[in-house]
């Protein structure tokens, strides 16, 4: 059985980075926070603003967040991820303000010794973010109208622990 390097089961801001910012996001910067010589795998997810919704043309998305609660709730979510998966480090960066078409609204990264943990953890993390984090987006269409979106119901029970 392969040696599993140190991995924290306790979520902690030293290893679980959280950033909400109106600046453009960078995948490289997020990945740098989770790189580790004991990692064999880094998995990432980027959410980007799509140019259409229901056949209508989207100009941009506008995001707002209840930041102190998002930070608390995110640590809860990462805690759950760490109970299911062997994770070395994570980072979650979410943009607020205007995010034009093609640009990135959220980045989630995770590192682990083995690939299944990193890939499954990121999937769990983005699904949990979309279900639970107090962040909202308004979709601005090319006819000038804007509507607050509501994420679809997400079944989080499908995310089972990785067996080693």
């Amino acid at each position, binding site marked *: 059985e392969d040696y599993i390097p140190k991995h924290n089961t306790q979520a902690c801001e030293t290893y679980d980075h959280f950033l909400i910012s109106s600046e453009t996001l960078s995948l490289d910067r997020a990945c740098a926070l989770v790189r580790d010589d004991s990692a064999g795998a880094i998995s990432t997810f980027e959410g980007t603003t799509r140019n259409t919704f229901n056949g209508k043309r989207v100009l941009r998305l506008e995001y707002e967040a209840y930041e102190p*609660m*998002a930070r608390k*709730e995110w640590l809860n979510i990462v805690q759950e991820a760490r109970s299911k998966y062997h994770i070395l480090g994570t980072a979650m960066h*979410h943009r607020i303000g205007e995010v034009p078409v093609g640009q990135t609204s959220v980045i989630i990264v995770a590192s682990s010794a083995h690939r299944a943990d990193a890939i499954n953890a990121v999937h769990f993390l983005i699904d949990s973010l979309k*279900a639970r984090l*107090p962040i*909202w987006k308004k979709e601005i269409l090319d006819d000038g109208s804007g509507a*607050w979106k509501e*994420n679809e119901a997400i079944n989080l029970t499908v995310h089972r622990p990785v067996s080693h």
Partner: protein
Amino acid sequence: MISVKLLYFASARDAAHGLSSETIELEQQAPATLQSAVNIIRQRHPNMEAVLKTALLSLNQEYCEAENTQDILLRDGDEVAVIPPVSGG
């Protein structure tokens, strides 16, 4: 009297005509519960009724679990937010 801060996000802020937060005073002995805060919100912002149908509430930045908001006692300095259905990511 105790002071409680109310926060309105997204469609809740729209229903409060752009007001993102306000502080209210509650009579602690009434008792001051989450329900009493919600009642005040309803009185001050009639448009909030529709939002409250699908919104969750938070107390001090944690989701409120209780079925009955009258069971949750508020204390001076508490922060309550109206959390419409989220759409992060």
